[in-house]
């Protein structure tokens, strides 16, 4: 009996009001933040001292990852959603990242630098 359950209990509106979903103000603030980070990224590309430095690539990856997390956590509501949704997303995402890193070590520039190819 407990295995089959009817999903209807709450209206969507009540769920959002009583739940943890952000308000429209939060969404707008995140939109502004995403724009600012993108502007910083693009500016960094045009600053030779930054673009040629060793911190450029890590800083770009960190900024990009931050934007990625903000969209997934707040706009896609993963921060507030059920853990099964989190598992369904982060599992394949980790697999994809391992694939990218693995391929880079096997065949990419990293492999060339390490003398593996």
């Amino acid at each position, binding site marked *: 009996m407990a295995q089959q*359950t009817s*999903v*209807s209990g709450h*209206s*969507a509106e009540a769920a959002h009001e009583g739940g943890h979903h952000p308000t429209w103000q939060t969404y707008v603030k995140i939109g502004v933040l*995403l724009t600012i980070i993108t502007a910083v990224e693009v500016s960094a590309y045009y600053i030779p001292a930054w673009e040629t430095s060793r911190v450029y690539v890590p800083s770009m990856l960190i900024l*990009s990852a931050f*934007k990625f997390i903000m969209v997934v956590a707040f706009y896609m509501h993963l921060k507030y959603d059920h853990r099964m949704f989190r598992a369904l997303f982060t599992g394949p995402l980790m697999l994809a990242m391992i694939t990218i890193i693995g*391929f880079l070590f096997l065949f990419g520039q990293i492999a060339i630098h390490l003398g593996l190819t």
Partner: protein
Amino acid sequence: MAHSSAVAVAAPHAGHQHHTSTGLDNRKIAVWAFIGSECMLFGCLIATYLVYKGRSIIGPFPHETWTNPQTGQVVQGILDIPVTSASTFVLLMSSLSMVLAHNAVVHKRQPKTTTGQRILGSSKLWLLMTALLGVGFLCFQAYEFTAFTHEGLTLSTNLFGSSFFVLTGFHGAHVTAGVLWLLVLLAIDMKRGLQPEDEASVDIAALYWHFVDVVWIAIFTLVYLIR
């Protein structure tokens, strides 16, 4: 009994009556599983691009200047960062308008007394805005692809051309599918009005749209900004 109530609370977003053994909306589970599979698809495409990066024998190249030995034509780095930055901004703003569309559907029945509340509560406006921004992004991509072709870069020119067009082309195809999905939602909204009970349908479309956005966040950094 306790289990039944626990699973009902775990699915507060479902608007429609349907049976589920997990207590979660099956459509949301399906779309998250689909997004997970899409992560692996784009992960492989990005991995392919990065592996082939810097291995093209002939140009045009993404960032480096190249002289065509046959025509003597000098081609600067082919990627147009200002144009792509603008298209990235457009796609980010489309995610914002999509989340506002979802918010408008959820709070449809709340009284709207001020102009600001009426604007914020108009799901039609935000869905239309999202679709238009998506079309705007596609126009930027069409411009970019056309410019590249005129510069001599095609799918078969070199490794960069092959991996770049496949990666960004697949992403563009996803944006196109998203725009069509949004237009269908907009048509439903125009015809009968989306209500809070339709929240799950809008949420699923929104999840897909935001995923398309996060893929572009990764592509923009890895392909355009990192030499």
